[in-house]
Each structure stands twice: as C-alpha cells, then as structure tokens.
C-alpha cells in the first residue's frame, strides 16, 4: 500500500460550503419538532384533540393522519389519562409516523442528507468531517445502522401510503353544505392534497430499491421490466427533488388543514 498525503487543513474551499448542510439540518430539526407537536403535543389541547375538518364542512385529512384509521380500518385510538397532564388521545399520527419516517431515514437520498448535515461525514465535497483521521469510519450501515438495509421493505409501506394519499385527495373533493347535503367540488385544500399525493408518489416510485426491483437487479430484464426500469431511472435522477417537495408539502398541507379545521381561515372553493 502507498502512504497517502500528510495531514492538511479541513478544506481549502473559500466558498460557503456549509450553507447547504446547515440549511438542510435546519429543516430536519424543524420537521422533527413539528412531528413531535403533531403526534404528542397537539392531542393534549382540547381544540385540536378532536381535530376534525368535517366541522368546517370539508372532508380533508392531513397526510400525518393518512390512512384514516377510523374510516378505513375502524380503529379508534384510546384516550389515556396522564396524571398531572390530563387526557391525552393517542394520536393516529403517532401510530402511523414510523413508516414514512423509516422510509425517509433509510432512503438513499435521505441518508446522504443525514450523513452530510448531522454526521458531517463529509459535510461537503473536499471538506473533512469531524471523524477526520481517527480511523474510526465504518462505512454505510455499521452495527445497529444495518437497519438501512431494510429500505426495500419500507418501500412497500410507503407505496401503500402513496395510494392512500390519492384516496384522500378523492375524499377531499367532497364537501358538506350547511343543510348537510353532500356536494362535490374543488377547494384550495383539494389542490394541496393532490399536490401532496403527486409529490409523494413521484418520491416513492423514484426509489432506488424500487428501481432495483424493476429491472436494476437483472442484467437482461424482460421488455416490461426494462420499460419500467428506464422510466423509473428518469424519475430517479430527481429523487432528491421529490424528497424535498413531498417533505415540504406534508407540512404545508397539515398547517393549512389545521387552519381550516379551527376556522382560522375561510377556504376558497368551487362546487360543481
């Protein structure tokens, strides 16, 4: 083996290489806090405990609560009394969140963001990370982190989720008039819901594991698999873009639906 160069400074790059990892870390931290709010804190507040957009005459469901456990599976989450804090309804979001989070955390793009922004391994190209020259680097998925190899299974869950987001968009076209009759139409929420479903679908089907399954793993895939593989490959190029768009959309949709549900804003909608 040839001895490589001697120790040098972390980087000679004079540009603002830290902006990207820092900005991404910031959004991840914000998102984590938001998830904690949605799953743990919000259910404590009386007004949001029963948060239900039907009171506003709409049938919207936030992506955090999709699929609707009550509507599709008849599961109603229990209310637990936490001494000193009060009644706390186990949020359906809490029961569901691990699947999309697991998919994102084991995603080949998501891992890049995590490795760069949080582990600084490396923070940017031609910039040394913290673990510099200690010989401790173990590669991708060492020890307990071998969970990343389960990405292909999280894919199936995420795929099912994407289907439910389209079903949610369909229900988001149903509105209830003041006399209780059902009407169909399109509201801002319906459009947001559709965008959310679209971005999530693009994100999920451009997954590297799906690409592998659909022909990437074969040297001479058959006609259909080859066709699918080549289409997925085209989308896969923008996997990171879909990752971010769908991650933004989840929060935007959730905030918007909360505002509608609590009557903070009156929605613009067109009924057929």
């Amino acid at each position: 083996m040839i001895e490589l160069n001697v120790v040098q400074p972390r980087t000679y790059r004079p540009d603002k290489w830290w902006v990207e990892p820092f900005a991404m870390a910031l959004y991840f931290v914000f998102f984590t806090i938001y998830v904690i709010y949605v799953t743990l804190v919000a259910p404590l507040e009386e007004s949001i405990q029963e948060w239900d957009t039907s009171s506003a005459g709409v049938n919207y469901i936030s992506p955090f609560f999709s699929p609707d456990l009550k509507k599709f599976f008849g599961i109603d989450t229990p209310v637990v009394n936490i001494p000193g804090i009060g009644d706390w309804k186990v949020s359906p979001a809490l029961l569901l969140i691990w699947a999309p989070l697991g998919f994102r955390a084991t995603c080949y793009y998501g891992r890049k963001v995590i490795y760069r922004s949080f582990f600084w391994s490396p923070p940017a190209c031609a910039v040394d990370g913290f673990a510099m020259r200690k010989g401790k680097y173990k590669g991708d998925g060492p020890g307990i982190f071998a969970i990343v190899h389960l990405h292909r299974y999280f894919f199936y869950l995420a795929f099912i989720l994407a289907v439910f987001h389209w079903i949610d968009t369909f229900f988001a076209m149903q509105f209830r008039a003041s006399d209780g009759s059902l009407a169909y139409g399109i509201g801002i929420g319906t459009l947001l819901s559709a965008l959310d479903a679209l971005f999530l679908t693009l994100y999920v089907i451009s997954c590297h594991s799906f690409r592998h399954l659909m022909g990437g793993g074969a040297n001479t895939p058959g006609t259909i698999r080859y066709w699918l593989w080549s289409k997925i490959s085209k989308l896969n190029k923008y996997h990171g873009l879909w990752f971010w768009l769908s991650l933004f959309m989840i929060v935007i949709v959730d905030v918007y639906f909360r505002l509608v549900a609590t009557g903070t804003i009156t929605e613009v909608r067109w009924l057929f």
Partner: protein
Amino acid sequence: MSVEEKKIDVYSGAVLDRKKKIRIQRGSPETGIEMVEYDVEYDHTEVVLDIVHRVQAEFAPDLAVRWNCKAGKCGSCSAEINGMPKLMCMTKMIDYDDVDVLEIRPMRTFPVIKDLVTDVSWNFEVNKRIKPFKPPEGLKELTMQQKHVDRVQEYRKCIECFLCQNTCHVLRTHQKTNEFAGPRFMIRLASLEMHPMDTEENRLKEIKDDFGVMMCNITRCCTEVCPEEINITDNGIIPLKERVIGEFYDPLAKAISWVKKLL
C-alpha cells in the same frame, strides 16, 4: 483601449486584458512545500491550464504540471482549484472573475511528486485486482441487445482523471485505501457485474468483501466532481449495493434461501 495597445499572447492570440493573483503549490515532500504567488494576465476565453502554462512560460519554467489533451479527455490535469477538485483544462478563468486570489493545488489524496504532479499509481494497483471480463466459454461472437449494455456504456465514459478517488472522503479523509477501491473502480466493477455476457462468478462477493462497496456512504461527492458527468452514485454504486443487499443482507431473501435449502 485601441487594438494596438492591447497586450496579446504571441502564441495563442489571447487578449490579456484581465489580471489575477494566483498561488500555486510548489515543491515536493523532499524539498519542502510552499505556495508561490504570481500575478498573471488572462483573456476571458482562457481556462486555468492556460494560466498555469503562462506561469511556466513567464515566471517558472521548472513548474511541473501534467496534461495532454486540453480537451477534458485524457484525465491528466486533475487539480484542486480554490479547494475544489477539477480538471484544469475544463475550468474557465471567468468563473473566478470575482474572487481575489486563485489557489491551485495538486490532488490531496495522492502523494505529491513535484508541484502539481501527484503519484496516482495506487489506482492502477487497485485496477489490477479486478478480474477482467470473462465471456462465455467457446463463444466466437458477442451478440447482445443495445438496451442491455446502455448502462454499462455510461461507465465507459470514464477518463480516469481520478478526481472522484481524490474527493471520496473514504479515501481522502479516512484513508481506507485497503478497505475501499473507490468510486472509479466501483463503476468499473459495476460495468462487469452488470454486463449481460460476463460469466465470472463471485463478483458480487468480491465487490462486498475485497472492494468494499459498503464503505461508501452515498454522500455523492464523486458524482459532483466527475467531469464526464457519470452518475457514479445513483447509477453505479447504489445498484451494486442493492444487489449486495439482496444477496447478503436481505432478511427475507435469507429466509427464502434457508427454506429452499431445507426442502
């Protein structure tokens, strides 16, 4: 300024109407390494390699720099320009119009021989360890469908500039030269592993154990610096990882093969 007053480079005809302070790393480990500053004039059409040549012509005839094609095709002129690994012949000077100083250093991951020239022979040693393409025995002619070799042909664009090897933090920061073959050889291995007519067995196991595909943490710096715009990570390394996971780490696949063995 009238045409007559303009300073012209007599060899290239470049109009030298811009100025830049540039610092070049000079020397070798034996003689000591230092940054030497030069004030150079340049034309808006020129690339960094032109400026290095001007320094050679005007100030430092003993400056060592490796280059051949000046067209981004031979892969010789790799260096680090203001800290970013790039081909000197493919980096325009006007991209640096608004920086005060331009610093040019040799690739950091490889030992310096002199000035901007590094010893990249480690790469050739790694290459020798890769088993060559093995067509089916007794085959006279290779017939295959274009679509099945499309992806392999992307990897063939590699010009062996070793910028990816230089930038990959596994080699650059962590110096895992024994455990990891580096992105350039990951795509060479991918081109063999994915070849429809290759019959060499055990490639996947070697890719995992001998060439260390799992050392890569898919942070994509190789792809960012590749001058041939090969999508090394998404099209080469991740598909290899997926194959390796399918073969060696997938719990379901493991269970199936275990049941198969029982039957």
